[in-house]
């Protein structure tokens, strides 16, 4: 098992604790093919940004420009 995939899976579904996630889904990118590890890594990177307060909350998703 890839360490990258393990890291994401452990964050969402801790081996020794209650599940954090009730559902997780992805919107694919522009590449014709991706690996499971690449996708897991994108989740982990975004998750770190959100948890560390470095992901701006989008107040108005319909706005022309968001922070």
């Amino acid at each position: 098992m890839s360490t990258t995939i393990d890291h994401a899976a452990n964050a969402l579904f801790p081996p020794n604790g209650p599940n954090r996630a009730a559902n997780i889904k992805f919107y694919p990118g522009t590449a014709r093919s991706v690996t499971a590890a690449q996708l897991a890594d994108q989740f982990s990177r975004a998750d770190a940004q959100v948890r560390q307060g470095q992901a701006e909350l989008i107040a108005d998703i319909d706005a022309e420009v968001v922070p």
Partner: protein
Amino acid sequence: MAEEPVLLKGMATHVSMAASCPVGEIKFHAVSLDPAISLGHMVFERDRDSAYEEEFSIASIRIHRDLNRCWRRFVGCKEMMHIFDSLEERVDSRDKFLKLLDEFESKPLAQDMSPMFSSEGEAGWRALAVLCPMRLRNKYLQSWRDKTMTEYEIALALRVPEPVIKSLMSEYFEAALTTLLNKPNGD
């Protein structure tokens, strides 16, 4: 005067307030992603710091920060549609998460797709139907057929990505809507 497009912000509020909605709050976050790999994702998670005594779920929808408005709306809406995933479609365990990742990599045949992976494509059609309801679609259909409006102009009016206009105007669109509406509730 052009008819206003469907606004996602108000829809998210209504969805989260609906009694049948399994999530209490929907949050959209702008994050830095590699757009070649993914344009966004959503996590439905339990808010352990909630002031409410009952378990409170949050839909945290992460969207690549460099997307334009049309793509941001569509990605956000598609991820929001997963609020309506059935129990078998939800990725609520480690095994289902690993399975979903594997299917993104292996791209199985339609008949071999797990319910979780199948719901990815369905949510895209739901988002299209929600952002471009029949009344708006039909308003622009003849102009699309006559080519008196370009797909870019129609996408701009509807505030959706240009690549989705072909699907929206396809003969299959109505069939897809019928399939989704008639889909039995798996819960």
